């Protein structure tokens, strides 16, 4: 009797938790459907290639232009810059924490780096607009401090905890025997690190970089505040640009529902969604390979 009651209880729990697990899948499907339903009408109204390849963005003008190439380029430049900053910072600090730091330094450093991830992005944006932008403007003698570089710098710092934390986990997963074997055949610490540990953790590190990239490309509030928002094709890192996310955030609030402009913002969201989806799939594939390589199975 008692055993039976327990079995029923367990079954109920199982159903509750599987329902919860599938709920997030439901949300994903819902969001994807909304993006497609609201975004695809644009391709009929404007044309797919004119949308992706056009270089002018005047969605509310009486002769509207819906070219998002400058916005895509804005996102790419800012993200590329952010990667150039967060990879050395994140992977470097992961190596330090894993290889060089004493147990006490490590216990102190890792939580603090991860704390960076907990700062709200609007705070980063405010920091960027009040402190970093004027500094860059004065140091480099630019007409304005709100540039692609400013955005990259701040996004780079924001993505660092992601890169550092996952890279450090990957380094940590490298079995102790690998190092011991390497030392046993006479390799020094540097050789062990560069020829054994890093290659063994390489796919984990790559996955961390890609996740950092998708963090950077999807970030909205910060880039809206610090990149200046000029919808032009970027020529240098030191000019204002307008990433895709900033465009949606700035324009969605006041657009007329159901208009071409409204659909175009959803279409930008759709493109962005596809980009981050590809990033995440690649990261998943790489880290799966990594687990297999170390003989940890799936």
């Amino acid at each position, binding site marked *: 009797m008692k055993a039976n009651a327990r079995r029923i209880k367990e079954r109920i729990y199982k159903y509750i938790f599987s329902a919860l697990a599938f709920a997030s899948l439901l949300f994903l499907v819902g969001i994807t459907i909304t993006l497609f339903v609201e975004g695809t009408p644009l391709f009929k109204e404007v044309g797919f290639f004119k949308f992706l390849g056009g270089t*002018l*963005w*005047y*969605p*509310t*003008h*009486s002769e509207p232009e819906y070219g998002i190439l*400058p916005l895509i380029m804005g996102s790419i430049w800012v993200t590329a810059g952010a990667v150039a900053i967060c990879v050395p910072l994140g992977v470097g600090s992961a190596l330090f924490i894993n290889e060089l730091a004493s147990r006490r330094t490590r216990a102190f450093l890792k939580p603090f780096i991860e704390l960076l991830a907990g700062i709200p992005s609007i705070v980063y944006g405010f920091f960027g*607009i009040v402190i970093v*932008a*004027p500094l860059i*403007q004065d140091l480099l003698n630019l*007409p*304005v*401090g*709100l540039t692609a570089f400013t955005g990259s710098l701040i996004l780079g710092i924001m993505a660092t905890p992601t890169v550092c934390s996952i890279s450090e986990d990957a380094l940590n997963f490298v079995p102790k025997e690998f190092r011991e074997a390497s030392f046993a055949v006479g390799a020094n610490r540097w050789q062990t690190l560069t020829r054994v540990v890093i290659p063994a953790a390489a796919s984990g590190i790559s996955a961390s970089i890609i996740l950092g990239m998708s963090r950077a490309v999807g970030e909205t509030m910060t880039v*809206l*505040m610090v990149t*200046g*928002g*000029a*919808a*032009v094709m970027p020529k240098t890192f030191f*000019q*204002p640009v*307008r990433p895709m996310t*900033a465009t949606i*955030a*700035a*324009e*969605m*609030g*006041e*657009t*007329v*529902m*159901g*208009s071409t*402009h409204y659909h175009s913002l959803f279409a930008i969201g759709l493109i962005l969604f596809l980009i981050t989806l590809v990033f995440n799939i690649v990261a998943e594939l790489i880290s799966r390979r990594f687990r297999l390589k170390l003989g940890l199975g799936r």
Partner: protein
Amino acid sequence: MKNKLFLKVMAAVTGIALLSGGYAFAAKNITIKGSTTLLPIAQACAEAFMNQHLDVDISVQGGGSGVGIASIIDDTADIGDASRPAKDKEIAKGKENGVDVYENVVALDGIAVIIHPGNPVTGLTNDQIKDIYTGKISNWKEVGGNDAKIVVVSRDSSSGTFETFNKLALDDEKVRPDALLQASNQAVAMTISRTKGAIGYIGMGYLSDAVKGVEVNGISPTKENVIDGSYILARKLFMYTNGKPKGATADFILFVLSDDGQKIVEKEGFVPIK
């Protein structure tokens, strides 16, 4: 025993009702949504109105002019704030939903063209402003200033402020594509105050000592000049309702239009309608 418990419960209920005073009886709710330009007016008026009418509860939300008018069309708010008139498309959409998008003018707003306080330029003509924003003029020395690049700051193209400025100052011509975009009046003012060569535009309510408002066609951006119509970059601010306002909503709009309400409008940096 049972009786005592009943008495205790009654006492507690009465106590809570007494403590919460008039709020326990707040029966009428007014929801206001829309333009961030009107947000300070709507908020301050709502507070003053609620102090006088304890039975009314008003909630004020931002979102933008488009959201304000859409909330009237969808009947998700009693008052939709907008810093631009409703478009024909929006009025037609309201009709489809059986909604009469009704216009109430509650205040005036001048758009101030602002520059860095350190910039020696004090005035611009409307044509010069237009040439700067469309890209024909790109150095301050062409309009009597220093030899420095002009950093053009604009608003997101779906904001009411942008729309009004684009119509009033630029005759609907396209803003140069490399103009910076900021998503709020405060963000524009902040960018201008930190960038020596910058020019931007904001609602007059957001003018402060951190930026310099320039004369347009020789007329400075002041309340008097907006009321008498000599300052050309000015616009009306609207509170839209579904049909002629009724009940508590009508009382609130009458309050905004009253002397007390218009004093609040002025205190928030806007221009009263009379």
